[in-house]
């Protein structure tokens, strides 16, 4: 319980800092939002009216509080260009990004967990070296390269998957998953490399433990020893990186969604930056930061599930 309170307090402080930084991002960026709203043809009075309406001349703390108050009511402002509410723009795009991320994560875990186990079980053999080399290679391929390779072979060459475009899951689940697979793979590539290497190393250490020998001395089979006894105690570093990886994947979605022409958050961010649509940029950045912070909060809670000693002990056990 104390653990949960500590983590929650930390979450609130982090979210506060995130909100301040996101707010300042727009304030500090060059460019006058009022000019954007007005376009080219306006009078001095129009200009002052818009500045007043946007609250641009208020002191910063007041502007921050106003903005934050809006955020709490789900009002992230409206796009200067299209007048669409920022929240609506984000909510429209989120399912695409999340679907790709979740499928990518699932693929990465499904591939890397067994690979890491085999490598750890056969540590320092040819199998292990092969897996380690392959995962290092995966890690070194930039996601845009992997994306282009996948498009070239699997869609252009073999025609198995659409190269670009999006179908929503609600309208056609199968077509939607087909559209998801290549971008998800492009995101999963580096993740597979990271997870396999991490889990292999921790797993090798776990397999030296007495409780693993005891599990074998009970007559447990190798798969049972690996999955039932060794996986959980070996996955703390993996969980940590999983949290960080949410941020990496959101960042990666900017590139991957651009290449595959997917209408997700990443594309929204890129387009808004090019169009200098600062309200959208601010909203998306805030959204990504909040998702990232919350994901890492979830990882903190996951530690407690993975290792019961942390649940009871002080927070220093996780530091």
């Amino acid at each position, binding site marked *: 319980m104390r653990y949960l309170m500590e983590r929650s307090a930390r979450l609130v402080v982090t979210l506060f800092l995130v909100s301040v930084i996101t707010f300042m991002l727009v304030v500090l960026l060059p460019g006058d939002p009022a000019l954007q709203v007005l376009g080219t043809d306006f009078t001095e009075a129009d200009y002052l009216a818009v500045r007043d309406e946007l609250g641009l001349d208020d002191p910063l703390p007041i502007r921050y509080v106003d903005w934050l108050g809006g955020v709490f009511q789900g009002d992230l402002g409206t796009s200067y260009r299209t007048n669409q509410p920022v929240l609506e723009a984000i909510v429209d795009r989120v399912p695409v990004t999340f679907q790709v991320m979740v499928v990518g994560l699932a693929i990465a875990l499904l591939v890397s967990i067994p690979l890491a186990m085999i490598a750890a079980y056969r540590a320092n053999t040819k199998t292990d070296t092969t897996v380690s080399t392959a995962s290092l290679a995966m890690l070194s391929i930039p996601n845009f390269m992997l994306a282009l390779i996948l498009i070239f072979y699997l869609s252009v060459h073999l025609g198995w998957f659409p190269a670009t475009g999006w179908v929503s899951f609600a309208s056609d689940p199968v077509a939607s998953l087909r559209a998801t697979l290549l971008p998800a793979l492009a995101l999963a590539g580096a993740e597979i490399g990271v997870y396999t290497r991490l889990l292999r190393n921790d797993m090798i250490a776990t397999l030296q433990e*007495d409780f693993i*020998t005891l599990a074998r*001395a*009970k*007559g447990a089979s190798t798969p049972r020893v690996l999955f039932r006894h060794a996986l959980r105690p070996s996955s703390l570093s993996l969980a940590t990186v999983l949290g960080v990886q949410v941020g990496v994947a959101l960042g990666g979605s900017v590139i991957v969604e651009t290449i595959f022409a997917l209408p997700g958050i990443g594309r929204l961010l890129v387009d808004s930056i090019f169009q200098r649509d600062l309200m959208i940029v601010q909203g998306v950045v805030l959204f990504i930061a909040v998702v990232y912070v919350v994901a890492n909060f979830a990882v903190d809670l996951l530690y407690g599930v993975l290792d019961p000693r942390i649940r*009871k002990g002080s927070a220093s056990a996780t530091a």
Partner: protein
Amino acid sequence: MTTIPPHPPTDGQAPLLSVRDLKVEFDSPAGTITAVDGVSFELSAGRALGVVGESGSGKTVLSRVIMNLLTVSNKLPEQGEVRFRGQNLLTTRRKQLRKLWGDDLAMVFQDPMTSLNPTMKIGPQVTEPLLLHRKISRKAARARAEELLREVGIPEPGRRLNQYPHELSGGMRQRVTIAIALACDPVLLIADEPTTALDVTVQAQILDLLDRERTDRQMGLILISHDLGVVEGRTDDVNVMYAGRVVESAPTASVFKQPRHPYTASLIGSMPKIEDPSHTRLAAIPGHPPHPLNRPSGCKYAPRCQFAQPRCIEEDPALMPPTDEETDRGTACFFPPGTDRGEEALARNRAAGYTATGLELQPAEVS
């Protein structure tokens, strides 16, 4: 190397466990490390064997190889054989071994802090061998686990099943590992220093528990310790190990009455005595065991031995009856303490003031 079993099977049946010329080596960058060097012994059903020796003498490696449970990557193929009810475990397939492990063969480790899985509740850890080896429902296994915990002296066993290892004291955890070992009524239990990591007050309780369970279940027990006192009164026979060898093998009572190897004599000499005030510093045996990569070619104990003679540097003694009469025991020593040869050798060294290896002796010292 020829050796004699201290207790040849009398009933004509194969003994429960028979270890023959067992040799275990490891590959290391500096050379081949011989951890177990030609060990032979037998254990009959229901009997208890103590294995005693300083740290590094090969006890843990021996115990794991007996179960064929040692899988470190730098281990070289074992030589010799380990027969369990006549079946050589060193050549038995892994799949067959898994049927024996946890069912007929069980093990208790030194450190209960590390031998239980920290991420699993006690319940599933105790029921695991039952579920693996018995056709039994999860519910029945749980009931049996509770019974087992009660049997090994754990209060509130029902509640313990839902606790994690870190919520229990060291002594309680060791009771849990014993309950796990006993779950499927093994015929052979190997306990590798089961009390070394525990408080002195808890040690006796755990040893008594093992002793009681062995008697009740007619189970064979190998009790490993670096402390001769642990096996005294709790084992039928004892093997004293030094540098990977068994240097003395005898009924436990005989060993304490008259050790026939200088190393055993020193171990007994360094045991705390009841008349000593508690906290007297123990007289540790001077010197160190030889480094496994650099063992003397003659008797491995010669550099520390007060009896050492020139022959001990030249020749490597095999395990043999110490005298013509004492056919139930063996010693790997040319000059066994308490025999004429031995006492003459010691007297010679005392007179000279040093041994054949140059170890200085205080003339006043009485062995």
